């Protein structure tokens, strides 16, 4: 069980959290990224624990997506390292992006799209157990009603729910939401994050939520990482106040 109490605030000049506990799922140590001569960020150090909901804030272009791509091992950092505990192969990561290559003619149904993530078996058809898991996750994400509608014809909110369902079907220990609520209306934003919170409460998964949305951050997060030019800021959500945000924009 993660707790805010054990999470120490660390700034970019500070030391890495030395209190690795059995709840720790990921450590980021002195992480840096440069594209050519341009430094995107450097010295980024933090730990992520099970049950923690970390919001990653910051202006466009500050390196939030770069950080996520490093965590997903799609980019190699130029400095520092990311470690998963007990190991990368034992941590399943679910990823929910803002956009995907889905247009109005995308043919697969919601159910078939979600089921794509069941890729471990060799048989072309789903096993009984896989069908049960698929139906369960569709039910949990409130998609059963539209399960047989082509994904290209559902609303933006339902699309995001389908992305979430696909990420959840493999029961990830780490769920990354990359601006997943950015294109949704207000009600749908809360509905989507309620589903995430429900999943988190059942599984103690860690969540990383990249966003610009402060009301959502304050309602759902346990911690925040504010990326900004100069030293970044990291803390518990009650430490995220106007002073911190003003300093970030100064």
């Amino acid at each position: 069980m993660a707790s805010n109490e054990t999470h120490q605030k660390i700034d970019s000049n500070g030391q890495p959290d030395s209190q690795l506990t059995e709840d720790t799922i990921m450590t980021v140590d002195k992480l840096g990224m440069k594209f050519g001569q341009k430094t995107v960020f450097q010295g980024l150090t933090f730990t992520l624990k099970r049950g923690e909901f970390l919001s990653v804030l910051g202006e466009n272009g500050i390196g939030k997506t770069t950080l996520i791509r490093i965590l997903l091992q799609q980019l190699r950092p130029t400095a520092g390292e990311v470690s998963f505990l007990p190991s990368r192969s034992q941590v399943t990561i679910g990823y929910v992006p803002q956009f995907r290559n889905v247009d109005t003619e995308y043919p697969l149904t919601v159910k078939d799209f979600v089921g794509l993530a069941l890729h471990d078996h060799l048989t072309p058809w789903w096993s009984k157990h896989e069908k049960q898991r698929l139906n369960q996750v569709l039910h949990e994400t409130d998609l059963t009603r539209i399960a047989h509608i082509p994904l290209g014809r559902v609303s933006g909110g339902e699309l995001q729910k389908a992305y979430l369902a696909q990420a959840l079907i493999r029961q990830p220990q780490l769920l990354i939401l990359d601006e997943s609520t950015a294109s949704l209306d207000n009600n749908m934003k809360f509905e989507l994050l309620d589903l995430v919170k429900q999943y988190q409460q059942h599984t103690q998964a860690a969540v990383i939520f990249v966003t610009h949305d402060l009301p959502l951050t304050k309602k759902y997060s346990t911690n925040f990482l504010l990326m900004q030019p100069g030293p970044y800021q990291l803390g518990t959500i009650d430490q995220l106040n106007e002073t911190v945000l003003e300093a970030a924009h100064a």
Partner: protein
Amino acid sequence: MLNYPFMQNAFAAGTLIAIVSGIVGVFVVARNMSFLTHTLSEIGFAGAAFGLFVGWTPLAGMLLFTSVSSVAVGQLSSKASRREAAITSISALAIGLGILFLSLSNQNASSATNILFGSVIGISRTSVLQVAILALAVIVVIMAVYRSLKFDSFDAVGARVAGIHGTTLAIIFLVALAFSVSVAAQIVGSLLIFILLTLPASAAKYFAHGVGSMIGLAILFALIGVWLGLALSYWTNWPVSFFIAVIEVLFYFIGLIFNRFTARN
């Protein structure tokens, strides 16, 4: 009609080609590789002409050229910004080479016509056996990577996060596609291969909404096109590829209309 051995061979080879095209075509369409398939058909033409030039069978030359170049073309066109230019340049080179090899091999015009447009009467019992072996190889490869290929083709972003190695999978698929192109060329000819590899699957996606059902329907559309095309060609003495093209285009337009109708409702 079916009393003639050449028609029996044509129907047997056509059936195998339709099945392979239906399966592979669904992934071609999902991976937006229709244009690449078109280019592979031109490379197939160059390969067949090369086969004639060096004294091999056209199929052997096609297999060599399409297999090697499919991977090269796939890698060259991995960046969307240069995809069209890369594919167009290789396509131009292939057609040029095809014409050169035909010219050097001193083959008559009917050889070129057969390669480009296919020939029903050119299919021997041995050709059917070759097509059967190649078709089986393609189906086995696709089935071995089916779930990963399905994920990568219909949701590349999700597949990457799930740890599926996209490059390896792309190479496996491109080689399977090259084999399919070489197989399909036996009936419809190298210029019109993309008909069977893209149109049945493009039409199927408007009627079916699961990968399995899309494959089933694409096979059905391809089978109807090939069988009906062969029969009409026999009765009218017109080219079989003309009929297959018309039938598959018809399926596609019916699909478009059906999609517009269902989307409105």
